[in-house]
């Protein structure tokens, strides 16, 4: 069972799908397009099935890496093919597998070059799978970088009117971050001869990593602390851009709003998690000590991310831009939780429990945000489809009267995003705040302003779009079809399920979280 390369198979399913879908690209006509859509969806469901299979066979009692595969690859460079998942990885795989079909369904009405579109989506999925399972820097980085390409083209070729600049901005920001990351890891490799995340984490844990780096690099012009910090800064930049963290976020709103909505779903639902995953899998274990040194500035950044993005969302008029900023805001909570965990607590048992809570919250929030944001953008897509592309806050009004089901379901998703108890959003945020308050009180306290602003703009949406006088233009807007309702049902159901029974996820990740926190020996 373990011997079977499940993860490799899982990663290759979407790749195969991409090739197959691209392969039928020659023909034109509606049948061909439907074939491409159907095939792509089938492959994404296959991937979902495989992920569920893994979920089922995952030993949640253990925080160790499971389903590992390990083969030598480029011995000269210390590169191995090493993949494996723990609770974190599994959660991310599941999230990806859920978000991708949603994205596909939301882009069903795309008409131009359909096979190419769907094969790019599948390719993106493969890259995400790869990123979430790779344990060696080399091929992790392959997937990390490769994911940019489909994302870029999805924006560039199917995006809105200002797609070119949005796509380029997206690419340039991420690329600069990646190169900084690459240089940092090269320096580490040079000093240690290792590219393996787990090995490096082990070294860092024993406090051997940075001394080795400082010693072997021989940059004697700088003090050891500075060398360590410089390397950390390179790696940090790579992930901070991806999440994104204020002030590296400026690519995000335009990319999200210009991308076709189906793509935005992928970007926010799954790709934004790559950054957070990087924080958890790479920065935290390997650069824990450095992060702790600069904890206060980091916390400030997290607070700024939370608060500023929430207020920015407040003044936006475009639904997609609002959700884009709201995404930044939600991911900010995750960062807050992650940074708070780094607080030195001197082995205080009570605070360790808080750390567990915060960390659990972070993972839960990652999943929740993916689910909720994807669903919200999906609603936007449906709205756009009905309105012929309009999605301004002020373009609508009183829609509740003509499409009550739509309004109701989207309301649920909005409340989930707001963090209403009983829905999934609440649990994650609650755990994060529960953990962070004792650990980083001032930061958590300031972040509450973000919550406030979020509440305001969510309610604003409800009011302006669904309530009030009916905008007569949309008097004939159809409500959700049965098909759409059926498609939405699992997502909405999952929101309730997680809100009421978060244990379902927490059980899987808890051991991983405990292990992660324990590794941080501060």
């Amino acid at each position, binding site marked *: 069972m373990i011997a079977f390369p499940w993860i490799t198979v899982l990663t290759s399913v979407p790749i195969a799908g991409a090739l197959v879908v691209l392969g039928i690209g020659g023909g034109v006509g509606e049948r061909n397009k439907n074939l491409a859509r159907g095939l792509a969806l089938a492959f994404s469901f296959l991937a979902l099935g495989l992920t569920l299979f893994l979920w089922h066979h995952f030993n949640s009692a253990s925080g160790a890496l499971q389903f590992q595969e390990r083969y030598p690859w480029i011995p*000269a460079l210390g590169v191995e093919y090493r993949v494996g998942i723990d609770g974190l990885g599994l959660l991310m795989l599941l999230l990806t597998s859920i978000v991708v079909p949603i994205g596909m369904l939301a882009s069903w009405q795309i008409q131009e070059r359909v096979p190419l579109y769907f094969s790019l989506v599948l390719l993106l999925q493969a890259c995400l799978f790869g990123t979430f399972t790779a344990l060696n820097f080399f091929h992790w980085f392959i997937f990390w970088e490769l994911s940019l390409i489909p994302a870029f083209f999805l924006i560039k070729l199917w995006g809105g009117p200002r797609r070119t600049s949005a796509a380029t901005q997206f*690419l340039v920001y991420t690329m600069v971050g990646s190169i900084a990351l690459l240089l940092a890891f*090269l320096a580490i490799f040079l000093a240690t001869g290792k590219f393996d995340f787990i090995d490096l984490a082990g070294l860092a844990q024993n406090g051997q990593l940075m001394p080795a780096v400082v010693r072997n690099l021989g940059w004697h012009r700088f003090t050891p602390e500075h060398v360590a910090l410089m390397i950390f800064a390179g790696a940090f930049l790579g992930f901070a851009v991806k999440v994104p963290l204020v002030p590296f976020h400026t690519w995000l709103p335009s990319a999200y709003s210009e991308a076709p909505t189906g793509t935005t779903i992928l970007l926010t639902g799954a790709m934004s998690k790559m950054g957070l995953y990087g924080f958890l899998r790479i920065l935290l274990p390997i650069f824990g000590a450095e992060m702790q040194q600069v904890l206060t500035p980091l916390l400030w950044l997290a607070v700024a991310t939370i608060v500023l993005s929430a207020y920015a969302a407040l003044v936006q008029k475009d639904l997609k831009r609002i959700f884009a900023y709201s995404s930044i805001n939600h991911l900010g909570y995750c960062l807050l939780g992650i940074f708070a965990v780094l607080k030195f607590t001197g082995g205080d048992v009570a605070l360790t429990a808080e750390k567990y809570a915060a960390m659990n919250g972070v993972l839960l929030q990652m999943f929740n945000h993916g689910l909720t944001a994807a669903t919200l953008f999906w609603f936007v897509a449906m709205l756009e489809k009905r309105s012929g592309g309009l999605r301004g806050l002020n373009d609508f009004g009183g829609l509740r009267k003509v499409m009550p089901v739509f309004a109701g379901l989207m309301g649920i998703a909005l409340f989930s995003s707001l963090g209403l108890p009983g829905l999934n959003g609440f649990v994650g945020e609650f755990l994060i705040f529960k953990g962070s308050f004792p650990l980083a009180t001032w930061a958590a306290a300031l972040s509450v302003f973000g919550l406030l602003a979020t509440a305001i703009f969510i309610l604003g949406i409800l009011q302006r779009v669904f309530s009030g006088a009916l905008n007569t233009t949309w008097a004939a807007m159809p409500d959700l079809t049965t098909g759409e309702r059926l498609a939405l049902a699992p997502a909405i159901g999952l929101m309730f399920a997680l809100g009421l029974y978060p244990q379902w996820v927490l059980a899987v990740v808890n051991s991983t979280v405990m292990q992660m926190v324990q590794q941080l020996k501060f």
Partner: protein
Amino acid sequence: MMLAWTIYISFLGALALLLLPKGSATLARSLALLTTIVTFAITLTAFVQHRTGALLTVTQKSWIPSLGIEYHLAADGISLILLLLTGIIAIAGILFSWNIERRVQEFFAFYLLLIGAVYGVFLSYDLFLLFVFYEIVIIPKYFLIAIWGSTRREYGAMKLALYSFIGSAMVLVGLLAAYIVAGAKSMALEDLARFPFPLHFQMWAFPLVFVGFAILAGMWPFHTWAPTGHVAAPTAASMLLAGVVMKLGAYGCLRVAMTLFPLGLGPWGFHVLGLGSWRDVFALLAVIGIVYGALVALVQKDFKFVIGYSSISHMGFILLGLMTLNQLGLAGAVVQMFSHGVLAGLLFAVVGRMVYDRAHTRDLATLGPMNLNKAIPFAAVTFVVAGMASMGLPGFSGFVAELMILIGAWRAFPLFAVCVGIGIVAGVAYIWRAMQQAFFAEAGVEPTSMQPPLPPISIPERLGAILLIGASVAVGLYPQMLLNVILPALHSPLFDGLRKGSWQ
């Protein structure tokens, strides 16, 4: 041993093409293709069979006994890789010149002559023989460009020929001097590499020979032949030029200059402008080449010039890798030779064959409104893939190579490594800019019906592109395939001097 037949078959193919009856273009093409496929098959077989990478003598016969010159062909891991590269590029080049209609037989005859000579250089173990093949390369190169080229072809061709010839003249002086100083008994590489040349001799002979070869490798500031030559050349010739001919220079630097005169890399004992040895000087020039090539590529208006300058930038990586003098850097340089060969070939194929032969312009501003990504999507996809690979996207060969070189450089010249980072960023930028402007520009006006639709991408082009992309991906995903043979070669006695000297 079959490897020697790569040379003979190519030359025989060229001869046969000349003797073919006139007017049988398809026959000529097929014959040329067949020839290159056979040679490629031979190199591939040798590569697969010869897993250890150690030196393998192909043939060794007395040639001019009175001068101690032998007809000695041999291959080690490094040459095997370059032979393989030559085989790949040769096939792809023919596939991409399937549409040549004018003087077909002569074209392919020159082409095969060039290929045969390139095989010869990579196989030669006797320096006289190496030099013979090295010079043979110049002539077909000149005619391929001058007859079948485009923009300012005669100027570009002549410049290229003269630069090459001046470079080889420098090499000849150095080799002659080495031959005489070593007692004029043998021109075999290993004999000369073993001979302890006096330090002061190496100090002038090394830069002479190195620069002589590096001219062909496009080292800044001797690179100016490269952009004009590449732009003027017909597609297949650009592919060969960037793909293998520039590698001849780099190969010579490593194989001849550095093994013969390892002490020339040592410190001078004094510093000029912070540079303390030829090694520093050449590393600096390489870095300048990387950054300069990338920056200049960023502002070009002609699509092909973008690729031409990008070659200079990438060749800078090779030279930098050589100058790191550590195992990773050197191995990286060899991998980069392969990688750049494949990718530059592919890029030139897209620009020269897929785009220029259809749109009849290479001006980026003019190409934009043609909406090429809809008109010839295959070209767009190929360019995107090739561009990504060339900018060092992981998963392609360029990444591994540049990664290794960067690691090596980081160890040897930390400051330069940072500059290289700038070069990489600029590399991303120019590929991106070219791609945007050429393929994905916002179509201001819908293509009018007046404009005839561009002919679709033909089967040979598709095959060629797939071959090259496949090669790049294969190396990118499993570089160990190359490293397995490179590393033993770098540990062979040939590089003893280098290892004992300044190897780190």
